[in-house]
């Protein structure tokens, strides 16, 4: 177990170093950092002085080392467009993205699991077939178009829910702002989380259905039935438990894509999160924000993968035997 965890940890660190190298290359070589910082009227001497002061004349490996040390302390430099430290900008926006991602993951699980169980147990019923067709359409609709449809239906036509922003937020602690505690904040969460969670929901539903169909045919389920256990007990205690292992893995891995796809959802709903900022950075070629976002998401992804691997190891006893 410890050997497995260390090996994984070392792999994760190598991945992070490679990503850091990429981010550094972007930061250093795409456009001249000096040109972005100073005005047109700055003289060449002043530029050289600034270059020397920022250490841009040092050997590249030294610069890379400095970049990594600074990044480890959450210092990603100053944004070209906002003229503010990138870390402060991110700190302000991380809560919005995390709350949105959490709500959509919750939505996907709470709706997707029962639908999957139902479709797995009654595979020939009309409702299951409807679930499947709906999920195929759900996979085919691009995220942003789902958002537009929802806005058109619930904000423009019915005027039930707001179409942009987070509503009122409450500050908790020094920097975390939450939309969970106000009515308008919760209302603002509904449409973006459905938009973001719909794809994951169809995925979870299909996965559980497939697993259920597989498990329900196995001998131990037949045996449980032969023992005269009630259907409810067989389905939920025996069958469902064994479908959960892949679901946990996939959900964990999908958490990363939820954060990535939040970029699109945040743009459609003008949600003030990291994704929206990243997109504005891409449009304005704001390299410090882009490289910081790359590092942050890479870190999240690597951390999630690591946790999922460890969890898989803990859940599935078969992985523990026969491994060096």
């Amino acid at each position, binding site marked *: 177990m410890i050997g497995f965890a260390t090996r994984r940890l070392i792999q994760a660190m190598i*991945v992070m170093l*490679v*990503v850091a190298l990429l981010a550094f290359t*972007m930061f250093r070589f*795409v*456009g001249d950092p000096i040109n972005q910082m100073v005005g047109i009227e700055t003289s060449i001497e002043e530029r050289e002085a600034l270059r020397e002061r920022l250490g841009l004349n040092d050997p590249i490996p030294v610069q890379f080392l400095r970049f990594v040390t600074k990044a480890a302390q959450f210092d990603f430099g100053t944004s070209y467009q906002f003229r503010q430290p990138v870390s402060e900008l991110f700190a302000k926006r991380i809560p919005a993205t995390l709350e949105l991602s959490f709500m959509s993951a919750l939505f996907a699980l709470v709706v997707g699991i029962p639908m999957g169980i139902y479709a797995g147990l009654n595979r020939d019923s009309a409702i299951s077939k409807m679930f499947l067709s709906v999920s*195929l*359409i759900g*996979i*085919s*609709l*691009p*995220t*942003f*178009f789902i958002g*537009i*449809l929802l*806005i*058109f239906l619930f904000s*423009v036509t019915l005027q039930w829910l707001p*179409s942009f922003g987070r509503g009122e937020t409450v500050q908790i602690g020094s920097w975390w702002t939450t939309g969970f505690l106000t009515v308008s904040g919760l209302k603002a969460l509904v449409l973006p989380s459905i938009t973001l969670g719909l794809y994951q929901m169809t995925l979870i539903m299909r996965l559980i259905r497939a697993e259920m169909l597989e498990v329900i045919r196995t001998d131990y389920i037949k045996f449980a039935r032969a023992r005269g256990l009630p259907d409810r007990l067989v389905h939920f205690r025996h069958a469902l438990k064994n479908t959960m292992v892949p679901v946990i893995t996939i959900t964990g891995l999908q958490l*990363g*894509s939820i954060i*990535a*796809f939040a*970029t*699109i959802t945040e*743009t*459609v709903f003008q949600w003030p999160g990291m994704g929206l900022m*990243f*997109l504005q*950075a*891409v*449009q304005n*070629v704001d*390299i410090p924000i*882009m490289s910081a976002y*790359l590092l942050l*998401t*890479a870190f999240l*992804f*690597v951390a999630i*993968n690591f946790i999922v691997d460890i969890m898989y190891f803990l859940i599935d006893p078969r992985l523990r035997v026969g491994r060096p």
Partner: protein
Amino acid sequence: MRIADIQLTFPAILIALLIDGVAAGIFGGIDREIFAFYILIVSLALSFWVQYARTVRGSTMVEKNKEYVQAARVIGIPAVIIMVRHILPNVMGPVLVIATINLALAIVTEATLSFLGVGMPPTQPSLGTLIAIGNDFLYSGEWWIAIFPGLALAILVLNVNLLGDWLRDALNPKLR
């Protein structure tokens, strides 16, 4: 393969966005109008290549231990010819299926990038751009500008997905 593993942990759309952003930084300004189309192609290709590499590697590792490969080797056929003439046709099945599914994904990704304003420039036609323009008119009640291109996109992607499903069933000898 290590690179593939690392890239596989990131969703394609993020990679495409990043490549697009970096390319915009390198070319900038007017050049971007001309190159946008090619940048888009390259960024989409770079974000999707991993799946092909992974799949082909997987099936090649299965195929290369089969008897017909051993037989070919015994006769003394050069390794290159075995690879191209004997193994390649046998690993192309899954590639075709992935290609159709990825085609659907690429269509969605292109539309998404254009919708976000980092794909095709506004001067060139794209369903994503059309939807982005329609999105601005949504609040004044002119819904058709966004909804119809969106439906066209959805139907296109649904059809490609269905084609992929059928192709998978048709190419799977177990289901025949």
